[in-house]
Every structure is written in C-alpha cells, then in structure tokens.
C-alpha cells in the first residue's frame, strides 16, 4: 500500500465514531491539519485489538493541528500546535 499523502499536504480527519480500539483521539475528529511526517506502515490497531494479524499494513502519519482549531477559547498563543499520529484510513484529502 503506497502512502496517499505527502509532507505538507493539508488533511481532514474523518468525523467518525466507530466502536472498538480506536487510536484517533475524539478532539481531532472532524478537524483539519497538515502532514508533518510519514511514520511508516503499521498494522491497524482497530483490527489488531481483535486478533487480526494478517493483511495489508497501513501508512501512518504525524499530523499537526493549530490549537485554536481544536479547542474553543484556547487560552495560549495562536502559534501553539498539537501533533498526533493518525492512520491513513482516518484521513481525507482537503479539496
């Protein structure tokens, strides 16, 4: 599986709420950020947690978000950021 996104690409995190062992924090779902690093390909934790060890691995990225985009009334500087590891199936292209 080749990586769909490159460093610098703007991305949108799916606003999805599936049950199970999901490693995408709630606070970034539905938010937009920028790819800052390709971390490699890993097994999907949502499948691993239920014993699925076969099949393709998934690209995983570090995505940078502006704090002001994540929280209402963020009290720090507008330059403050958060970086989170997100698997590709949680990311959508920003058109």
């Amino acid at each position, binding site marked *: 599986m080749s990586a769909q996104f490159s460093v610098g690409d703007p991305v949108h995190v799916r606003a999805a709420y599936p049950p199970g062992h999901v*490693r*995408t*924090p709630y*606070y970034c779902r539905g938010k937009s950020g920028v790819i800052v690093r390709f*971390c*490699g390909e*890993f097994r999907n*934790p949502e499948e691993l947690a239920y014993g699925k060890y076969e099949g393709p691995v998934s690209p*995983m990225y*570090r995505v940078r978000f502006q*704090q002001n985009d*994540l*929280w209402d009334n*963020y*009290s*720090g*500087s507008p*330059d*403050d*950021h*958060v*970086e*989170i*590891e*997100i*698997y590709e199936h949680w990311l959508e292209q920003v058109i």
Partner: protein
Amino acid sequence: MSDHHDHGEFGMYEHDPLHKHPAQPDLEDTPLTHHQIMQMAVADLLIEKGVIEADELREQIEFMDTITPARGAALVARAWVDSDFKYRLVADSKKAGAELDMDIGPTPILVMENTPKVHNLIVCTLCSCYPRFLLGYPPDWYKSRDYRSRAISEPRKVLAEFGMELADSVEVRVHDSTADMRYMVLPMRPDGSEGLSEAALAELVTRDTMVGVTTPKT
C-alpha cells in the same frame, strides 16, 4: 525490681509489646481489577502454550525495572557536546542510541528538540504511552486523567503549575503519543553550563526535562 531497671510495667518498651498495630495489607488483600486478571491470564497462557518461558518474562520485567532517566540523559548530554550526534539523534534515535551501546527498544522514539522558538511537551491522552526504554516507568501524574486532558487542551496552564512560564512568542508544541511512536524531549542546554563535562551535563537532565514540563537548570 531495682532502681536501675525501672522502666515501668513493660520494661524498656513504652507500650505493651503485645499491642497490635493494624496489619499492613498484603498485595492480595486489594481486589484485582479486570485488567490485572486479564494480564495474569494472558501471561499464564503464553507460558503454558510455550510461546515464552517464565524466565524470559521475569528477565524482561527485571530489565525494565533497571531503566532510569539516566539513559535519556546520556543521549541529551552527548547531543549537547556533539552537534553532529544531535543531528543523528533527532533523525534516528535507534541508530544514535546504538552509538552509545544503548538499545532503545522495539518502538521508535522520536526526539523532539526544544529551541528558543519551540517548546515541546509529551502526553498520551488515550492511555500512558511513554518512552520507557529511555526514561523508565512514567510518574503517576503522567498517567492521571488531569494531566492527560489538560496537557493537550491548556498546556501553558499545566506548565505554569510545574513552575514554568513561557513567553507567548515561544510556540508550545504538544505531542500526543497515540499510536506506534514514542517521544522524548531534547531540552536546550542551559546557560552557565559551558565548562561542564558530558557526565556533569547529564546530571542536569532530569526526567521532567525530557517530558517537557520543565527545563534543565545549572
């Protein structure tokens, strides 16, 4: 009873030697949680099925118990005295660790360098992921819901509670350790440390400076 041995009814004891204090509870007196039972069951199964041996499990626990933040501090001190090493540490901490005969473990650890413009802070909002191969076990506050929720949403207030005030001109960059990477902060070398040896510099690098809740001081 002679005058020389007059210690009262119970001799040299101030209290009745048979007086019972409340017993300190044994480990087994605290009810096991669901996940403790699961962990014990999985360990038993792995051993019974021959996947691992009891001695391997014991050895790994013993090894993890030996890790202290001194490992991370050794990497930071080397980076402070050797800028080429710092570059390699930030690029690939596993290879850089191997130069110091240090195995940083199976999970990649990304080293985040503090600069005059960026201050890095590490948290795991989902659980308690931590760079254990470099810092040992996390402190209790790192695992608390309070730190996990507030370090991400109001990091400057959390830093202030740890005694650290940052100018607005310094970006606070929080790294949420949610998946397959771990993070360690590479703090800035403090002013006044110019004449110190690498070993003395490592002494300045505490656990909290590598989580990012404070900075090294001379």
